[in-house]
């Protein structure tokens, strides 16, 4: 019987891998709910892109809800998403904080001058450590953080008009309801 143990262990692994393949075909990897939703956003203090001597931290952004958009010049999807940030997202009226993820600042700035800069302020997370705290999975990602610094909504993948209508507007409406 003990001779069969390695085989049994392996078959369990096979089950797991089969599940993994099936899961990947069934699920868009972007559907995963973030465990950070309704939790306080992780504390961060990051240099401003292009101005490394100035840092922006979580505390300085409290008091007003804002979007935090994870982008990078190496990210192909970000190019597709960018026009949405420049137009529809800006029209929502909240500040958008750019979170430049694992990027070379030079490349990021060149990218922004080519595609336009929709951000109110951009922080640079060069080594991706703050990104780990935020559970960043792949750019682009967008967080909605409320006035108290709590993450209220997260989108993995590019923003589309549909996402704004079906997900972001309801999240904003929920925020507005809470406001005194």
């Amino acid at each position, binding site marked *: 019987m003990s001779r069969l143990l*390695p085989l049994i262990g392996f078959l369990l692994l096979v089950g797991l891998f089969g599940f993994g393949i099936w899961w990947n075909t069934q699920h868009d990897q972007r559907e995963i709910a973030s465990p950070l939703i309704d939790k306080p956003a992780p504390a961060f203090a990051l240099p401003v892109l292009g101005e490394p001597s100035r840092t922006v931290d979580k505390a300085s952004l409290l008091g007003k809800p804002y979007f935090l958009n994870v982008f990078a010049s190496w990210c192909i999807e970000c190019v597709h998403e960018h026009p949405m940030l420049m137009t529809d997202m800006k029209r929502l009226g909240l500040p958008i904080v750019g979170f430049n993820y694992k990027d070379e600042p030079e490349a990021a700035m060149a990218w922004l001058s080519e595609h336009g800069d929709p951000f109110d302020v951009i922080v640079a997370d060069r080594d991706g450590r703050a990104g780990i705290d935020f559970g960043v999975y792949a750019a682009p990602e967008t967080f909605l953080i409320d006035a108290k610094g709590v993450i209220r909504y997260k989108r993995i993948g590019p923003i589309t008009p549909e996402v704004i209508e079906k997900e972001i507007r309801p999240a904003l409406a929920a925020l507005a309801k809470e406001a005194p």
Partner: protein
Amino acid sequence: MIPELGQFALALALLLALVQGVLPILGAWRGNAALIAVARPAAAGQGIFVFTAMAILIHAFLHYDFSVAYVADNSNLALPWYYRITAVWGAHEGSMLLWVFILNIWSVALAAFSRHLPPAFVARVLGVLGLIGVGFLAFILFTSNPFLRELPMPADGGDLNPVLQDPGMTFHPPVLYMGYVGFSVAFAFSIAALLGGGMEQAWVRWARPWTNVAWAFLTLGIVAGSWWAYAELGWGGWWFWDPVENASFMPWLVGVALIHAQAVTEKRGSLPAWTVLLSLFAFSLSLLGTFLVRSGVLTSVHAFASDPRRGLYILGFLIVVIGGSLLLYAIRAPKVATGKPFAPLSRETGVMVANLLFTTAAAMVLLGTLFPLIGDALNLGRISVGPPYFGFLFVMLMAPAVLLLPFGPYLRWGRAEGRQLTAMAWRAGVAAVICAVVAAVFAQGHLRAIAGVAGAVWVGAGTLAYIVKRWREMPRGRRYPAEMAGMLVAHTGVAIFVIGVMLSESLSVERDVRLAPGQSQSIGGYDFRFDGVEETEGPNWRADEGIVTILRDGATVGTMHPQKRTYSRGQVQTESAIDAGLFRDIYVALGEPMDANDVQGAWALRLYHKPFVRWIWLGGLFMMAGGFLAACERRFRAKKIAAESTLEPKATPA
């Protein structure tokens, strides 16, 4: 026309692999000498056609044949010739071809250097290798063909990922695969032994040099990969517990257990089932690594293209190869405990304990790597574990291994004497304590550094004491046979590695600074003076190159030239400058200018001072050398089994 020949060569190789996989095994089973004799020519034939396919793909890269989609995707006119060759394995299709290519190097080598083995046994071994070849060749032809045409032909190609445009990358994948794929030989030996039913000691002896060489290559490949990450990724780290790194590390850990278990089985006849199982595990983990990397089941910074069809194919292949071999093991593994009896305090026990530590470590790495997947399966959300998990558990498992290591050579087979062990422990222990106290004076309370020095001296002094003991007690010429010399060199490598890891992890200084030309920053006793930035050019990039002068007590130690490269396709890549030294590395990475319009002004720079970091790779190279050295043991080439092993310590007082 020529790329079609490549595809044709692969198809012929597949047919010959089928012949190699079926006929010799059938012949060995039925005792048919004619079928047995097919093994070597079939292996040679498969080799010739796979080598041809490889040569044709390299030719297509060298001649800018962008009508081949794979060539167009991974190279362009500006890419220098040496990176066009390495671009062959820069993406999925080509690296699968490299896999089969290296499998064939091993098969052909085995066919050539196995004349002293029984023909039926060699037929089975080559047959198993042939079947593995069938699996991979079919995979290439049906899901990952590198010779597919792209018409109309683009005028120029895409680009090889600039991260891969580094000398380390020319070298790292082939060597790593030599190790990975090399475990297929140990695997084939085990399957041949199980099929043959004669679980005699001899097959383990024949398998040992092959296993040692494969393990040594794997060690070198991992060292090269770690070095490349350090030099090229620009973060100054040398190991990231990334799924792809783990995929190569798991077979390595099991390989450590395997080469020790093989020694026990060969010399004493004990633990044969365990040795068989470990060789199945080592190769299974190599295949598993391929699956994890290629199927897209796990996401990784290595970011290979993934495709569920490929994932399904490899999973099916895993089921056949691993499931089949474990089933064979369950049916045919030796039923009774064989070999000479051994006492609780003996070398056999020592090897078993070490084996358990290393296989547990491999299981821990596997679990950590699969954690995100398990999280999905149990509906816990996507959880991943990072370096803290791996680092903590790995140190917990390896600390006892380091503690026990110096005892190994002193333990006698069968029954060891406590007296010799305590004598060794006193010497090495006193040396370790003295060095730790000295280190404590210098390290100023860095506990990890002190522990590292103590651990390394403990291993080093224990190993040295054994070298001295052999020198005194054995006659000239019999002191250090190759196998023992290899063991001693590899164990010394462990001591060097421990120093490197513990000292560089605890004493490194890292600073992100902003420096205007002429300004300097002092780190670890060195002054870094920034002398401005110049423009420079390479074959397919231009760069801003910083000039940083390193001074110590006012005297110039060297000048460093970190670069910020922009490749012709627009990707930006940091080339850090490293001033390497035996006792410290100075590492400078160029950030960005403070003012984008004024490159002659102040820049952000990342400066590191890393004491002893080079010892990490030096230790790895020692381990590799030990593996190669041990494989040269003359006894492995003998057909008969010697009555008495040369490794056995004589029962003389210390």
